[in-house]
């Protein structure tokens, strides 16, 4: 195939009737939602991997992007430590059994859009002490983990969310390696682990931890027994390991962060598939304590998903609509709030969102990092493309963004790319050194 993408097109009658995209406005607080449609064959179009071959992602004028680290093993989320060292969680979890013929086929197709590198099950430390975008020291910081994803530091306690447990390690400033095993704070739900990532953040005062736990299915097709403690955010007391359900109905909360202006917990959440190319928008939302966000019974507030039986009208009635739609199937996996003008005054209040990219629509969506401008703690305006070029123009993916993190000391945005196994660093372009000045 010329574009080396592969598209499994539905039978013409099925696609022509209901698989078409209408170009709806699905970004912002009130996304346009089409009627739901199920095609005979779900539209599958995943960008085929292609190397960067020396190219780099596209950044706005005035910014420079460099590969801070390459040859990682499925980098997903990152944490910038107080001394500027960067931790990168590497791994790939999941492995729910394939219980239907479809699971077997979909598994094969989706794996074609991924890196064939095996997950590292480790955390790598990157040290760029002079902040020039070149790493001087790179070590395996913690090894022998189990699909680590979320990271958080509270004082000298480093928390790592494996796919099955929350661990605590003692961190000493300047450490480049931790070899003592972590203490288990609490187990995390890991039965099946269809959506295995465990997003993690700490409250600003460090007293509580929040873990995002994704659903065990697309739309409850494994039954609601499999959804015990799934599609929720847990609040965990790090001192005792005790947890409680903080919010529910969040299909796959893949990244959590605190809004620095309001002090509220926010999340990016991936919504369901296979009811049309423009359903359901993935979203960015504040996570309100005790709120139910619809999954699986409804989406974007009261819109019922007819695939889920028995239905629960009483739950749908109190389903909260999220704050801000990011677009359907973009697969938002990274979230980082800016806390001041680290990347210039244009990017002083708002959030960066990493979008891994779509599979369930014919027009590829996502595959970029966007900036959502905020004003007084609320989203204010459409997403702005910040880093693009992950697609090569022929529908192939050179990279797929996952986690994003702001490096306040280095004045940079970091992007984990789990297809090219790279951590990218985006920083304002350094002022030109005057002629005659010593270089170095």
């Amino acid at each position: 195939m010329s574009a080396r993408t592969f598209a499994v097109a539905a039978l013409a009658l099925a696609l022509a009737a209901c698989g078409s995209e209408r170009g709806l406005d699905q970004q912002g607080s009130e996304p346009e939602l089409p009627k739901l449609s199920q095609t005979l064959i779900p539209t599958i179009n995943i960008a085929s991997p292609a190397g960067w071959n020396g190219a780099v992602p596209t950044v706005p004028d005035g910014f420079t992007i460099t590969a801070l680290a390459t040859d990682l093993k499925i980098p997903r989320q990152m944490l910038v430590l107080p001394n500027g060292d960067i931790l990168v969680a590497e791994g790939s979890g999941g492995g729910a059994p394939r219980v239907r013929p479809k699971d077997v086929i979909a598994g094969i197709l989706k794996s074609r859009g991924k890196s064939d590198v095996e997950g590292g099950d480790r955390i790598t430390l990157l040290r760029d002490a002079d902040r020039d975008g070149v790493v001087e020291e790179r070590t395996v910081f913690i090894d022998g983990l189990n699909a680590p994803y979320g990271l958080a530091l509270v004082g000298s306690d480093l928390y790592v969310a494996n796919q099955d447990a929350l661990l605590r390690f003692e961190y000493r400033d300047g450490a480049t390696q931790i070899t003592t095993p972590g203490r288990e704070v609490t187990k995390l739900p890991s039965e099946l682990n269809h959506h295995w990532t465990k997003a993690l953040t700490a409250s600003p005062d460090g007293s509580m931890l929040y873990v995002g736990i994704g659903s065990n299915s697309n739309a409850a097709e494994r039954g609601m027994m499999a959804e015990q403690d799934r599609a929720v955010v847990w609040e965990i007391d790090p001192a005792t390991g005790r947890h409680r359900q903080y919010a529910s109905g969040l299909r796959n909360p893949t990244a959590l962060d605190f809004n620095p202006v309001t002090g509220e917990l926010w999340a990016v959440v991936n919504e369901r598939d296979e009811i049309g190319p423009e359903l359901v928008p993935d979203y960015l939302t504040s996570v309100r304590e005790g709120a139910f966000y619809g999954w699986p019974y409804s989406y974007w507030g009261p819109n019922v998903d007819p695939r889920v039986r028995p239905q629960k009208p009483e739950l749908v009635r109190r389903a909260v609509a999220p704050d801000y739609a990011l677009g359907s199937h973009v697969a938002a996996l990274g979230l980082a709030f800016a806390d001041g003008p680290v990347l210039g005054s244009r990017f002083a209040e708002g959030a960066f969102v990493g979008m891994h990219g779509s599979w369930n629509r014919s027009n590829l969506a996502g595959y970029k990092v966007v900036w959502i401008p905020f004003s007084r703690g609320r989203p204010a305006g459409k997403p702005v493309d910040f880093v693009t070029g992950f697609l090569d123009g022929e529908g192939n993916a050179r990279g797929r963004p996952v986690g994003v993190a702001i490096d306040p000391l280095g004045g940079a945005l970091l992007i984990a790319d789990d297809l090219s196994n790279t951590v990218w660093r985006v920083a304002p372009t350094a002022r030109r050194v005057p002629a005659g000045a010593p270089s170095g």
Partner: protein
Amino acid sequence: MPASSATAETFLSPPHAILLAFPVAFSWAAVASDITYLNSAVVQWSHFSAWLVAGTALFGALVLVWAIVAFLFARRSGNRGRALTYLVLIAAMWVLSVLNSLHHARDAWGSVGTLGLALSIVTALLALMAAFVGHSAVRREAVR
């Protein structure tokens, strides 16, 4: 009754007859598990249905190949008509089972629903009719 040396025979060869048994059994089992799912909303039954329908399509494809061959090799005109009827039934059964497999690949309630059950029932009826035609005896003249 006049004595006859004709033997009762079908145009199904033993491997063909064995293969034909699978779509018949699978398709009717799929109807049963579809109904159970629609009555219980227990998703395990929708998974059973998905495998049974897929199995119907897989064995249906093999039977279809045999049916085409049997039609091409049916020399006698009496057999030829029957082989054609059989081929048409098998082909229709197979096409429906493929469509039904795709339908059953949807998630949860969407995998079965009214249309899924209807497709399962029609597929099963076609399989049964084809088997009936295929297994009916063909009168054959005495060998010269």
